[in-house]
């Protein structure tokens, strides 16, 4: 098992290197550079050259990459062009705000999805199955940023029972903070709910059709024990997709955070795009990709713990 974990970790190294190369290349391809944003176009050329030298932009590209990578490895994510603050601290608070949405949303979406999926599979073809499958397909087909707007229109504008935007005042009580969480969490949980319930329904049906289940019931095993076997067999593929979906919650949060003006990593990216603050944008994307890679390793290890056959 430890060897397996070691191998997975080792394998992440070239992937992360690849990710850093892609992001660096994108930044290189970006139209214009820092100097275009920092100094007015009518400024003398020398000023721009001094700045370029200061940022190391006059060095060869590969040298710039290694300096950048070296800084990254030391935990230096660069400095925001706009605020002149280190990106790291800003990103840390934004990330924790994003996780505050993503974790409850994942929990809600995964549980609801698994329950709906299992029920739909057990009542295959019945009205319950049709209803749940319909909910699931709507969940994956709805543009969730639009759902956010609709929820705001209903609960904030028309009924006026829940806040429409933001996290609430920082010194507000817990209940107030929770009230601000409700709408964005529901919005975010829709897609994972739909995806997981469709997947769980399909894999439970697949397992139910396999012979060993008939063999178990023929042996007179209790239904609850059989359910345990089904869960055990459906878990690895479901876990894999859950890992992916959690990553999507982080990466896709930008849309929902924009709708709700949530000060998370998505909001940070949106602001960075608006201000053309490339260091903030590229570092945020890099960190999110790093987290996603870590989640995938975690999922692989979990899968291998449940099903030893996957420990190759």
């Amino acid at each position, binding site marked *: 098992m430890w060897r397996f974990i070691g191998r997975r970790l080792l394998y992440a190294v*070239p*992937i*992360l290197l*690849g*990710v850093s190369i*892609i*992001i660096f290349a*994108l*930044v290189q*391809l*970006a*139209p214009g550079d820092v100097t275009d944003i920092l100094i007015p176009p009518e400024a003398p050329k020398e000023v721009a050259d001094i700045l370029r030298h200061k940022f190391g932009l006059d060095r060869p590209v590969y040298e710039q990459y290694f300096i950048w990578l070296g800084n990254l490895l030391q935990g230096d994510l660069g400095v925001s062009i706009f605020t002149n603050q280190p990106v790291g601290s800003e990103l840390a608070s934004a990330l924790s705000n994003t996780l505050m949405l993503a974790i409850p949303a994942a929990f809600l979406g995964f549980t609801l999805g698994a329950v709906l999926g299992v029920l739909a599979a057990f009542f295959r073809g019945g009205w319950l199955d049709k209803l749940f499958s319909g909910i699931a*397909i*709507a969940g*994956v*087909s*709805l*543009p*969730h*940023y*639009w*759902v956010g*707007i*609709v929820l*705001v*229109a*209903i609960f904030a*504008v*028309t009924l006026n029972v829940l806040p429409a935007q933001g996290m609430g005042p920082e010194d507000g009580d817990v209940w107030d903070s929770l009230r601000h969480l409700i709408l964005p969490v529901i919005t975010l949980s829709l897609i994972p709910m739909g995806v997981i319930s469709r*997947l769980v329904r*399909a*894999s439970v049906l*697949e397992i139910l059709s396999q012979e060993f289940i008939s063999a178990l019931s023929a042996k007179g095993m209790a239904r609850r024990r059989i359910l345990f076997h089904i869960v055990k067999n459906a878990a690895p593929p479901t876990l894999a997709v859950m890992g*992916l979906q959690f*990553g*999507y919650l*982080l*990466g*896709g949060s*930008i*849309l929902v955070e*924009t*709708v709700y003006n949530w000060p998370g990593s998505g909001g940070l*990216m*949106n602001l*960075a*795009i*608006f201000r053309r603050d*490339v260091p903030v*944008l*590229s570092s945020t*994307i890099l960190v*999110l*990709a790093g987290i*996603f*890679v870590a989640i995938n390793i975690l999922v692989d290890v979990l899968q291998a713990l449940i099903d030893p056959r996957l420990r190759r």
Partner: protein
Amino acid sequence: MADQVSAREAIEGPIPTLDPAEALARAREGKGYWKRVWESLKDDKVTIVVAIVLLLIFLAAIFAPLIATHDPSKGSIIGRLKGFGYKDHLLGTDETGRDMFSRLVFGARLSLISGVLPVIFALLIGGSLGIAAGYLRGRVNTVIMRSMDVLYAFPSILLAIAICGILGSGLENTLLALTITFIPPIVRVSETVTVQVRSLDFVDAARTSGASSASIMCRHVLNNVLGQILVYTTSLVSLSIILAAGLSFLGLGVTPPDAEWGLMLNNLRQAIWVNPTIAALPGVAIFITSMSFNLLSDGLRQAMDIRL
């Protein structure tokens, strides 16, 4: 041997021969896989309805100038954010008094282009890469699949946001960003399916005819993997439509004043305080289109008897 033949002929009569040209024609007429898929699709009412809806949406987009009742860019200061049926505005007016129905019809053009085209590009590129990786195996496989692993490290829309956000907004960058986003999953699915087909004896049998790898991939592998890849791809179109509109919603996609559903949604965001129904309309359009592609994918999956 001669005795056996005559015995058989005695029972069944002489075996009639067939002209090769006619045999060729018959071979094309045979009840092949796609014909069977079509026959089971014909009986699937949901899928037929969904296909018709999609066809109507595409036709509306193509013939937008004929269908639109108003000029989609002509506003009015007095008639802003009016409800359904205000004057002759079937679906009301937007925040600058432009006709919603006409804008939705024209918006379908850019929304469909930016939602469907990337998936088609990704299908062509990713499908070829995946089939090549699955069929040729070895080093080709390693290079292709490991590169895809790197792209996979970006969760969902993040890569698209990285590309659009850093390179700048506009239709071309949206198309590029979404194409790159959808290549890795298509490569992975095509590779998996191809590896399965590759292990079947008929591929080996084709190899023993001395045909080239390219010929075997086109004539024997492609028609056996295409169904599954297509089903998967149609489900991606649904996601792509949502994401493309999402990029415009963020201001990363199509630039104003062009009509596009995601952009319209963004422009109407503040209008939910005045007329929520009108503000929600572009989302309904995205939802119907995306849902139709999802249902179409499900229908195809069932007709082709594909599991997951």
